[in-house]
């Protein structure tokens, strides 16, 4: 932590970065995102296992984008988001200074200090940051080797359901959606200037929080994240009504991995899988 504060102070006082996005304490046993502009405020920075927010979401916020260079405190999972933002041309690699943190997994305080409900840390492959200007913290052992294909337990469980059961499950879950857009705003990949639901000509998605609108919205969001979701589980964590959104996202993650052999957020040279194609892509479902 001292190393983090020192580095942040250095960067800010030498004007190498205009601001640092990091975590600071909340007074409760939690951490919250903080944007630090002054070197004297750098002392507020902390890093611990409560730092579950994905800070990459701030990189595409209007006022942050205006800055010349920005420093960011990032765990491996956050760096996956940054990598994806870079390959989608949302930020320049030169414009971010990544302070990578090694991480042993984060926990959510509300849930009695269990690992995050969606189990993102159980399948994490990047406990040691894979792309950073500086790595802070001792090297930790990776739980999952990089080349291993992941199958989430909850997804496996869910897929045993019949079609009717699945439909009923989602109707129950998604009618609860209050359309607060927290999932969208917390998602580092949801950076569109104006989201499809904010357009009304044509109005593809009902803006009301009725079952129909909830269904359409969550379907579109999951679809727009296909091949881009970096499994940070922020959408699910911030959902005030606890909709298991990662089930949908992971379905698509898995499909993309199986069909196009792609995992988002690891490779700076990769192309987003839905913008490219191979002539021999599978088409056994097409008549």
């Amino acid at each position, binding site marked *: 932590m001292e190393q983090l504060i020192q580095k942040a102070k250095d960067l800010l006082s030498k004007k190498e970065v205009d601001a640092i996005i990091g975590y600071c304490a909340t007074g409760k046993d939690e951490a919250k995102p903080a944007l630090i502009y002054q070197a004297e405020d750098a002392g507020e920075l902390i890093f611990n296992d409560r730092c579950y927010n994905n800070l990459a979401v701030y990189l595409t916020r209007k006022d942050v984008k205006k800055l010349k260079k920005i420093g960011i405190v990032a765990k491996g999972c956050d760096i996956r988001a940054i990598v994806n933002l870079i390959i989608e041309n949302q930020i320049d690699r030169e414009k971010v200074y990544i302070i990578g943190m090694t991480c042993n997994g984060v926990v959510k305080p509300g849930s009695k200090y269990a690992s995050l409900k969606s189990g993102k840390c159980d399948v994490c492959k990047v406990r040691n940051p894979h792309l950073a200007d500086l790595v802070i913290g001792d090297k930790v052992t990776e739980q999952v080797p990089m080349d291993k294909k992941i199958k989430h337990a909850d997804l496996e469980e869910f897929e045993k359901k019949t079609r009717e059961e699945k439909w009923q499950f989602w109707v129950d879950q998604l009618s609860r959606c209050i359309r607060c857009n927290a999932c969208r705003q917390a998602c580092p990949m949801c950076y569109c200037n104006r989201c499809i639901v904010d357009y009304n000509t044509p109005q593809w998605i009902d803006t009301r929080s*009725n079952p129909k609108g909830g269904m359409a919205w969550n379907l579109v969001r999951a679809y727009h994240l296909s091949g881009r979701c970096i499994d940070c589980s922020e959408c699910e964590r911030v959902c005030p009504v606890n909709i298991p959104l990662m089930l*949908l996202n992971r379905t698509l993650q898995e499909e993309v991995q199986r069909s196009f052999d792609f995992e988002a957020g690891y490779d700076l040279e990769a192309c987003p899988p839905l913008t490219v194609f191979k002539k021999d892509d599978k088409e056994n479902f097409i008549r």
Partner: protein
Amino acid sequence: MQDNWEPKIIAFVCNWCTYAGADLAGTSRFKYASNVRIIKTPCSGRIDPMFLVHTLEKGADGVMISGCHPNDCHYNEGNFNARRKYMVMRALLTQLGIDMERITISWCSASEGIKFANLVNEVTEKIKKLGPYKDIVQLNKSER
């Protein structure tokens, strides 16, 4: 089910191949079921899952999507991209529990009038067996 129920099927077809194919079927006087309503799109790559969900929501019982065969795309690569999109779209809709039996995806060129006519007949038969699609329509009923 009403006795005289006839399925409504919406077909999203690409302007350059399948639409011409459907035209050919018509001019060659192949008979195909009148349950299908054709909507022309510039390219099969234009078709978004929202189209599917919207059509089902507005009361369609089945959806067809059809475009040029790979390598035949008027825009060179539209259908290659479409193929990848359909792949994830299918996975998503399956996971949501939307009946994939009702969604047919095909390639059908301008010369394949018979293929198109047969396909329409086949799909109509299938949807007739499945009966009206109610899942999404029922969501509308829960108005307060």
